[in-house]
C-alpha cells in the first residue's frame, strides 16, 4: 500500500518563523517522524498541498532529509481555524461537527462522504486533503490529534 502522511500547514513550522522556544514542539516532532517514515520509500515524496502548504512540506522534507519524487505522498492540510474564542478565526460553533466528520473520514480512509462546503467559512485548509482522496485507503494511524491554538491539527499515516 502506498504510504501517505497528512500534516497541518502551520507556518510556525517554517524556519523563517523560528522562535527560541518552539510553540509547536509536539506537532513538529510528530510531523518530522511521519515524513521520515515516508522517506523510507524509494522514489521520493509527492506533495499535495496549497501554495503555503507546499512551503511547509518543503521545510519538513528538508529537515527530515527526504527528497521530492514519486512513490509516497505528503499531504498538507488541517481542520477548522475557528475552534475557540482565541482561535485565529474566533469561535464558529460549526467547527467541531465539521472537524469530527473530516476526522472520521480521514481515519476511515474514505473521503467520499465529506461535505466540503463549510471548509472556506471555517478556515479549514483542505485543498491538499481533497486531492488526496484517491491515494489514501484503509484505516489511518493517528499520530497527533490536537488543536492547541484553536486550529485542528492532525498527523496521520496510511499504508504500510
Amino acid at each position, binding site marked *: 500500500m502506498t504510504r501517505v502522511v497528512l500534516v497541518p500547514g502551520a507556518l510556525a513550522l517554517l524556519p523563517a*518563523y*523560528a522562535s527560541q522556544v518552539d510553540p509547536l514542539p509536539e506537532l513538529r516532532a510528530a510531523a518530522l517522524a511521519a515524513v521520515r517514515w515516508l522517506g523510507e520509500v524509494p522514489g521520493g515524496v509527492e506533495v499535495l498541498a496549497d501554495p503555503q502548504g507546499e512551503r511547509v512540506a518543503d521545510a519538513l522534507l528538508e529537515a527530515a532529509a527526504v527528497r521530492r519524487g514519486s512513490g509516497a505522498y505528503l499531504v498538507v492540510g488541517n481542520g477548522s481555524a475557528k475552534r475557540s474564542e482565541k482561535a485565529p478565526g474566533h469561535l464558529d460553533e460549526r467547527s467541531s461537527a465539521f472537524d469530527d466528520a473530516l476526522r472520521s473520514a480521514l481515519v476511515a480512509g474514505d473521503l467520499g462522504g465529506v461535505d466540503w462546503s463549510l471548509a472556506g467559512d471555517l478556515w479549514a485548509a483542505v485543498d491538499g486533503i481533497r486531492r488526496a482522496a484517491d491515494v489514501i485507503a484503509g484505516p489511518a494511524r493517528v499520530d497527533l490529534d490536537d488543536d492547541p491554538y484553536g486550529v485542528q491539527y492532525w498527523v496521520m499515516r496510511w499504508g504500510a
Partner: protein
Amino acid sequence: MTLRLGRHEFADDATIMMAIVNRTPDSFYDKGATWAEDKAFDRVAQVVDEGAEMVDIGGIKAAPGEEIDETEEKRRVVDFVARVRAAYPSLVISVDTWRASVGDAVCEAGADVLNDAWGGADPGLVDVAAKHDVALICTHTGGAVPRTRPYRVEYDDVVRSAIDDTTAYAERALAAGVARESLVIDPAHDFGKNTFHSLEITRRLDEMVATGWPVLVSLSNKDFVGESLDLPVGERLTGTLAATAVCALAGARIYRVHEVVETRQVVDMVNTIAGRRLPARAIRGLQ
C-alpha cells in the same frame, strides 16, 4: 568577536547586563544604599536573580569627593569580591578601579574584569590584567584626571577621539599581554564630556562598533539623560532606556546598569527587531 571575561565566554551574539554594585557611601544614584557589605551582597543576589550576567563592583564614586586612598579602596572591595566569587561561581565579576594595586588584589580575590573607568590613568593596570588573564574595559575620558568633572572640554570630533583613544588603549593592553578576546572599549558617556558630547557618542555609536572591538555602554541615569529631559536622578529610567535602545541598535554588547530587568527587555527587544535575536515564542498568525 567571541568575548572572554576571565573565566567566562560569551557567543558573538550575546549581550551582557553588567549590574552596578556600589561599595560606596556616596554614589550619585543609590546614595549609599549598598554601603554596608551585607546590603551590597543583597544587591548582588537581587541582580543575579534578575538575570544579570555580570556585576561591576566599585569602591570609589566617580565624582569628586572625599579622598579614598588605595588601602581604603581595597578594604571596601577585595574581601567583598572574594565573598561574591565564592557564592556565585558563574557570575562575571568586574571591579571598577583605575589603580593597578587594587586591580591586582581583586584579581587575586577572583575578579574577572577590570573596568578602568578612567581610561588608563594608571599605566600599570594593563600589566595586572595580563598577569591574571582577566578582561579589561578600555574607556575614553579625553584625558580627564580620575574623579574630576568636565569643565569647558571640547573636541574636534568626540567620536573620533573616543575611537582613537580606546582602540589605542586596547592595542596597548594587547601588547602588554591581555588576550584580544578579553578587551572591551567604552566611550564613557559623561566622562570628560558634556551632554552634547554624550548625545553625539550615542547617536554615532555604530562607528565604535565598526572598529570590531566589543563595545560597553554606561548610560544608566547619567546627567546627559537628566539634562536632555530636565529630570533629576531618580526620574531618568525612561530616558536611560531610550538611549539604551539606540546603543543596542548600533550593536553594543555590554550594558552597565542600575536597572537590570528593564534594560534586558529593551536590549532584547531591539536586537529582536534588528534580526539578531529570535522572538522568544511566536505563534500569532502562524498557527
